[in-house]
């Protein structure tokens, strides 16, 4: 297949044009606007599917398409300043595109059911279209600058979607909180982009890889720390904002103020995935900056801390929100322990099951009009399809074997365990401990949610009796069932166990680990051959024969090391299976068998529970300490400077200068221009008028004398 503007750009442009068009017609033709948005994202999905099929056909690590065009060129003489924009599709992009468009399509379809009673039904789809197109643009970007543009666009969309019910005060505050918190990270991200620009000369991914491979960052320092670390930390702070890592995680739980399908989009396919995606793209920089342990610790704290908060939440969406933070923590652990491939796989698998979980929660909320789990219970008879979808997703997120979450999370935890046991840096022991502890808590709180919602006796009969029985509907629960199908691990690993023992896809077994190539220090030399092509040029890539990738069981390591690592992985796998079932069993005995009393735990660890209910006081810290004690006094100081100095001297001084200038100008205008020139013109014309008027006397004989005199004078001159 050839990659031209017309085969790639529509992925982004069709949802974007749907947004532009719908923004105008949505008030009058709401139904049409909804249809256009949903159709647009589905067409995008078909384009993405085409790219994905191509990627599976080529089946090579070296698969890439890089097309650029000059955005603007400010070169002057020898000083080159040229900014290119373009698309970069490699294996990762192809998978990502399919996930984003696929999940977004199902979320759009579900929203047509979930939102159809809402007075702003159409407007919701306008935002969804823009949101999705921004995410797709980010995934297709070939450089950090356009990533940043789409990144900010998504920040805006999340702001409008979280504050969608703007008549509620909480929603308005939550949207501002999300926007401002992610903005903290964005500022650093921009700083990181500038730092990279100063070294590389542009910010194209491939050029950054080439520069890192060529050692361009050696012996460069910024503010006394190595430039690679400086840029890496800055970029990673952007990830921390967007992907809700500690300490910038506070916005994500509040994001559930938005409509549930938008939570599904934010938590699964778009917003938070963008942060991890960026860090994965910048993995060589993180590695070069020696910041992997730092990243791993941040991820570990996030994964465990968010999981503990999720234990005490009673709102069904809050549980899911904290589980998102926790799972994002696992992805970041994956980056930190060098488990690039598994981290990306967890991004994809998490997107699928989290989208499904949020849509299921939406289905529950829509049918009982209540979000509090203590008022639910026994809903499995009323909502059988939702229950089925949610059950599969809970298996997946808890890490039960044969489900997608197990395949990806187990590999992250396995790699963390390997580093904990073999690496000299003891911090990895902490990371592994936090990871496994978080996995236990994940299994527990997810099944706590499932049991409280769907099992047992109805705790609030009024709500239960008013719930409608669920019927199979193409836009109400079919999207959930489709998503829940893809929680099966075999789609990602090609085998049931994730270890390649049951061969399902033939030679394309383990396609995920085979094709997603980790750009670490040893393999960066690949990128020196990568060439960007101009948009519209003849595609030469069809003629290049790429060698098909083959699954390497040792992952490029020597057999001895690989064997050792495999053994640790086996231990890790067994450990995580045991842990998952322990968590599920604990939830079962607490909430179904009731042999363990949860009240005992909350009363015994009362302080701990209180801290959890207050989300570890992060909000209090930010609002009470940092904002009220730190930022507001500083704000006052600035305002005093503004009023007392800037306003008084600069603004007022400038005003009086202007007043003087005005006086002079007024005098000049009155005297010279008005009296002299304008009135002078009039006066001179009037004077001419007096002269001419006497000549034109109306006395014919006078005219006649003039005629005769002139004629005589003429004749007289002729005589010479």
């Amino acid at each position, binding site marked *: 297949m050839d990659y031209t503007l017309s085969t790639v750009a529509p992925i982004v442009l069709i949802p974007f044009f749907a947004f532009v068009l719908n923004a105008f017609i949505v008030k009058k033709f709401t139904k049409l606007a909804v249809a256009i948005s949903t159709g647009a994202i589905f067409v995008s999905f078909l384009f993405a599917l085409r790219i994905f099929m191509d990627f599976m056909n080529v089946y090579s690590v070296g698969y890439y398409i890089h097309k650029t065009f000059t955005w603007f060129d400010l070169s002057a003489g020898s000083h080159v300043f040229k900014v290119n924009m373009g698309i970069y599709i490699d294996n990762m992009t192809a998978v990502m595109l399919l996930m984003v468009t696929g999940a977004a399509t199902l979320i759009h379809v579900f929203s047509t059911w979930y939102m159809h009673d809402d007075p702003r039904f159409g407007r919701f789809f306008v935002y969804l279209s823009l949101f999705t197109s921004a995410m797709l643009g980010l995934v297709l970007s070939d450089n950090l600058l356009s990533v940043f543009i789409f990144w900010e666009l998504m920040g805006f969309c999340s702001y409008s979607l979280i504050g969608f019910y703007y008549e509620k005060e909480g929603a308005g505050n939550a949207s501002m909180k999300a926007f401002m918190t992610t903005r903290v990270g964005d500022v650093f991200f921009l700083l990181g982009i500038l730092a990279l620009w100063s070294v590389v000369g542009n910010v194209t991914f491939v050029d950054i890889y080439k520069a890192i491979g060529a050692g361009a960052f050696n012996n460069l320092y910024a503010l006394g720390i190595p430039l690679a670390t400086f840029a890496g930390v800055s970029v990673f702070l952007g990830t921390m904002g967007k992907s809700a890592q500690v300490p910038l995680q506070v916005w994500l739980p509040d994001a559930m103020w938005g409509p549930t399908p938008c939570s599904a989009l934010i938590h699964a396919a778009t917003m938070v995935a963008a942060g991890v995606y960026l860090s994965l793209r910048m993995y060589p920089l993180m590695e070069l900056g020696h910041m992997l342990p730092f990243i791993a610790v941040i991820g570990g704290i996030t994964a465990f801390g968010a999981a503990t908060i999720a234990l005490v939440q009673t709102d069904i969406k809050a549980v899911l929100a904290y589980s998102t933070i926790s799972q994002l923590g696992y992805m970041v652990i994956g980056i930190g322990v060098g488990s690039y491939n598994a981290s990306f796989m967890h991004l994809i698998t998490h997107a699928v099951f989290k989208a499904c979980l949020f849509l299921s929660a939406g289905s529950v909320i829509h049918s009982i009009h209540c979000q509090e789990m203590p008022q639910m219970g026994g809903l499995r008879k009323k909502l059988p399809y939702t229950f089925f979808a949610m059950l599969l997703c809970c298996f997946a997120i808890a890490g039960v074997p044969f489900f997608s979450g197990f395949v990806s999370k187990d590999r992250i935890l396995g790699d963390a365990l390997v580093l904990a046991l073999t690496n000299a840096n003891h911090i990895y022991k902490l990371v592994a401990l936090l990871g496994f502890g978080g996995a236990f808590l994940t299994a527990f709180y997810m099944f706590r949610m499932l049991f409280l919602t769907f099992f047992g006796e109805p705790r609030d009969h009024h709500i239960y009796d008013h719930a409608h029985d669920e019927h199979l509907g193409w836009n109400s629960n079919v999207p959930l069932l489709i998503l829940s199908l893809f929680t099966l691990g075999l789609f990602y690993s090609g085998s049931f166990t994730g270890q390649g023992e049951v061969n399902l896809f033939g030679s394309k077994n383990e396609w995920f680990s085979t094709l997603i190539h980790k750009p670490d220090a040893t393999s960066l030399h690949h990128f020196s051959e990568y060439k960007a092509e101009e948009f519209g040029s003849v595609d030469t890539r069809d003629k290049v024969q790429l060698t098909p990738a083959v699954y390497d069981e040792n992952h490029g390591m020597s057999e001895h090391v690989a064997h050792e690592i495999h053994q640790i992985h086996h231990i890790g796998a067994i450990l995580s299976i045991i842990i998952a079932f322990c968590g599920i069993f604990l939830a079962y005995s607490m909430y179904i068998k009731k042999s363990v009393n949860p009240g005992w735990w909350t009363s015994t660890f009362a302080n701990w529970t209180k801290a959890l209910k207050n989300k570890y006081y992060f909000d209090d810290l930010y609002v009470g300490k940092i904002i009220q004690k730190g930022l507001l006094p500083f704000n006052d100081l600035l305002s005093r400077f503004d009023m007392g100095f800037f306003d008084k001297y600069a603004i007022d001084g400038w005003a009086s200068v202007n007043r003087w200038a005005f006086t002079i100008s007024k005098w000049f205008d009155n005297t010279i221009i008005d009296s002299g020139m304008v009135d002078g013109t009039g006066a001179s014309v009037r004077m001419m008028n007096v002269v001419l008027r006497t000549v034109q006397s109306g006395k014919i004989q006078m005219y006649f004398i003039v005629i*005769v005199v002139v004629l005589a004078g003429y004749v007289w001159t002729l005589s010479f």
Partner: protein
Amino acid sequence: MINLGSYLAISFALFVCGILVMIARKNIIAMLLGIELILNASALNFAAYTKFTNNNLDGHIVSLFIIVIAAAEAAVGLGIVIRFFQLRESIHIDDAATLQN
């Protein structure tokens, strides 16, 4: 011998008389008479030049035309004078200066 100069002298005298009448008299009808004198001076000029320079009838024909034109002019001019008199009850030329002011 009556030569060209004599004709031209009479013509010039007629012309000057006409001009003087035009300038000096305030009576509109007298001014029209002055115009007649000027026209006759020019007609005499044409006839004289034809007689003394070449022997065709061009000048005579032009003279006849001038006589016809003079008659027409007199008719139109007198018509104007009558209307003017009806309007102002005067045939004084200074009464015809009212377009100004």
